[in-house]
């Protein structure tokens, strides 16, 4: 194994300022914040006041696009959640349970997946046939609330999401938490490496990267097609398949390749609101996790396709799909987002809306199976036919 060592332009990991800040926020610091918050609630209760849990307000009303940094950032508007409010009481109770559980993880140095937390905390509320949590979406929401309330990320609360995504290409990783395994992701056959849910630098070290750019791909079938066509080697790039919306692990990985190794990031998704959204999340971060953009986003990422222009350019009219009502609605909302307010994206979105069409990556197979690897991507990337 590992017969060919990368010879040129191998990047070496360097710690960023952010990494340093994040490291300072160790379990003790986070634990202190949690206790501080809980103490506040107990004080209120003792004073016969309605206990109030405060977290950041999310969603458009409290999110702004930082032109300077090119990322989405969260404002300082707060949401108040009271116990003595019919609409809040259940969620208040759930927040307390998650808080207590996160506190346990930190104390015992354990980590858990969000689904595990759900099950750890799920039980019947005494004297009723109501469960503390009915489904995972409830605990997931509360976890986000807690992240924001104590101003940290879930990884620091020892909580992580499900793993998703595949890495392929000439990149050597070391898993410091797994007997220092060292492996090159071009040499794992055509399958590639399953990206983990946590990719913090203290756990996964990126030892060497031999590539000119990172290509982020929405669908696993397209990733497989590109592997089959030996695209990564021929074009000297890293392929990251996200299987839909990128999981936090994949986003963290792409961010690190971009931030630590200064690799350009090129995103290749379906030409539809979901695809554009995947792109925008990789580039600027998401509204839901606006507070964490600085260590997830890649502000200089570029969008290679699919674009409306492609439909005409490559005669793909027959393999477009009609946008559903919901798609059109989403596209119209996107028109108003600050981070799509450049002329190129405005034109793209407006054209798509007026045509009422969407187009998938796989639609390129309508030309020929290898077309995407031999023509479409190399040509567009060489000519820098990107959307910003």
């Amino acid at each position, binding site marked *: 194994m590992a017969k060919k060592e990368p010879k040129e332009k191998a990047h070496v990991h360097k710690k960023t300022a952010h990494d340093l800040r994040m490291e300072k926020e160790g379990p003790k610091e986070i634990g202190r914040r949690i206790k501080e918050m809980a103490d506040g609630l107990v004080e209120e209760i*003792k004073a*016969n006041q*309605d206990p109030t849990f405060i977290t950041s307000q999310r969603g458009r009303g409290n999110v702004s696009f930082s032109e300077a940094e090119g990322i989405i950032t969260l404002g300082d508007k707060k949401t108040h959640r009271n116990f003595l409010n019919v609409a809040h009481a259940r969620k208040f109770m759930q927040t307390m349970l998650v808080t207590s559980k996160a506190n346990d993880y930190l104390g015992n140095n354990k980590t858990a997946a969000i689904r595990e937390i759900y099950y750890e905390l799920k039980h019947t509320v005494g004297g009723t046939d109501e469960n503390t949590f009915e489904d995972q979406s409830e605990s997931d929401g509360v976890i986000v609330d807690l992240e924001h309330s104590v101003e940290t990320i879930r990884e620091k609360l020892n909580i992580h999401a499900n793993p998703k995504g595949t890495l392929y290409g000439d990149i050597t990783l070391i898993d410091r938490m797994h007997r220092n395994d060292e492996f090159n992701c071009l040499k794992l056959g055509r399958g590639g490496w399953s990206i983990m849910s946590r990719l913090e630098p203290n756990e996964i070290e990126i030892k060497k990267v031999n590539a000119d750019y990172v290509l982020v791909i929405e669908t696993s079938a397209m990733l497989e097609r590109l592997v089959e066509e030996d695209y990564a080697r021929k074009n000297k790039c890293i392929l990251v398949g996200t299987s839909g919306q990128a999981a936090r692990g994949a986003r963290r990985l792409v961010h690190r390749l971009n931030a630590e190794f200064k690799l350009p990031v090129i995103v290749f998704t379906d030409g539809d609101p979901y695809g554009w959204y995947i792109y925008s999340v990789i580039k600027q971060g998401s509204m839901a996790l606006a507070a964490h953009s600085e260590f997830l986003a890649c502000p200089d990422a570029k969008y290679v396709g699919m674009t409306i222009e492609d439909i005409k350019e490559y005669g793909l009219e027959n393999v477009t799909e009609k946008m559903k009502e919901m798609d059109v609605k989403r596209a119209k909302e996107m028109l108003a987002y600050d981070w799509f307010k450049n002329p190129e994206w405005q034109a793209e979105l407006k054209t798509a809306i007026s045509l009422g069409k969407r187009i998938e990556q796989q639609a390129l197979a309508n030309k020929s199976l290898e077309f995407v690897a031999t023509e479409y991507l190399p040509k567009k990337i060489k000519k820098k036919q990107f959307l910003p």
Partner: protein
Amino acid sequence: MSKEKIEKKIKEEIELDPVTADTIAKEFKEHSVAEFFKKNKQMLGLYGKVRTLTTIIHEYVSNSLDACEEANILPEIEVKLDELGEEYYEATVKDNGPGLTEETVGKAFGQLLAGTKFHRMMQARGQQGIGASGCTMLSQSTTGKATKVITGKGDGKVISLELTIDPKMNQAKITNFKKVDKEYRGTAVQAKFKGVIYKDTQGGVLEYLRRTAIANPHAQIKFRDPKGQTVLFKRTLTHIPKKPKEMKPHPLGTTVDDLVTMSKYTESRKAGSFLKNEFDRVGDTSLQKIQNMIRFDLNKDPHQLSWEECEQLIQAFKKVDFIAPSTEGLSPIGEDRIKKSLESIVKPEFVVTLTRKPKIYAGGYSFQIEVGLAYGGNAGERTSSNPEDVKVELMRYANRAPLLFDGGSCAITKAIQSVEWKRYGVRDLDSAPLAVFINFISVHVPYTGAGKQAITDEEEIMEELRLSLMDCGRRMGIYLGAKRREHDRKMKQEMFYKYIPEIATALSSVTKEKKETLITKLEKLVKDKLGLEKLEAKIKSKQVGKEEQEKADDEIGKAVVVEDEGSGDE
């Protein structure tokens, strides 16, 4: 026969028998009102095998109640049905009323359009003088038998006779007339009918009598059905209702034609005194105002008034600020009595009732609406054996007489349907455990037909019906709202309480504060919060309730107090 042949034949016939105005004139005949209704008995409600029997009982019972009330007698009425054969029944109705004289008994049961009530401006169940005579006609035309009547004035003599009607003459034919010595006061009528069926269902006699009892809590009604089972509707009040007085027409609502006609027959010598004597609420002050608005002298002989002068008077009436019409001719049941009656017969969870002020509709007739809403408990009709399957029960009355048929074309039904019941806490009217009681009382009820089962939807009537229902609906809404709030409060407390142990355990684990302390504190917090809310709700509901109640009291007050005033406005 070919088409051509037929046409030729028709042509020949025409030539043989040319029809002209003169031949038509020979055919011109007059016929009596009895012949008319004999041929059109369906217009009297005498059609449909079940409905016919109910209509018959309705006519007899209405007459009995009217007679008793007019004579200030607490009514005791016995109704009996015997099955004589297939679709063949005998109906007997006996009352303890004032009885009839020898002269009137024939007219009462044997002549259409004869009676005491037609011309009087006074509330009564009957008003046309058609119903009972219509029954006599139906009896003779289906069975060939006469109708038997026994009547006594309580003076030791009792008249007994049999009668039929001669339709061509519209006159009673009396046979077997007897006068015997016996102590009985009241009237009993017995008649046989074919082509009718008794059923114990919606629209049947039993249902009719049950509804009658609800609106006449002072009456005692005993019913023996064809199977021999007896039902007794006891009186819930021993109070005789105020006897309505004959009323004068109110100037507002009087038409030019009414005025012209009345002026021709008046005994007054001057137009002014004519107005003052023969109209309600016209006094010297209003006469002076009227004089100032017209172009002739009120000292003029009223018999000489022209149509145009009458028009001037009508115009002037509209500008005078008359007080509301007198209620002397009307006899509402009263809010308390409707409530008592609904409570005892319907057995609901609660009742709200309302007696509105009298209003006038076109023609100068005053009318008044009474509403009762009975909610929950046994209210509403059961549509199956499952007690949850319930639908709203509409109880329509005109002058306390139940209206069981033709609901679709009745102003009351239309008004009920036009109200937005959701506002008053009733989500779906059709399936609500609700009885809607409405009594329309008037000196002249504008029935849509001689069958007297539906009230015409005149604009003023619809408006007043809607206002009455909405007013009463609001009060019900307040009750239902308070009920729901109390329920909500309990639910809320339960909800907060159940989360307390979870929260206390979690917070205790993080802060090391004692769990028990947290539980105690949190429970106190919840109690304090909900106690406050409850208090607020109470205050709020009291205020609204009070306002509503005051308004309603005010209106009832007016309706009662008005009796104190004379017929003039000074």
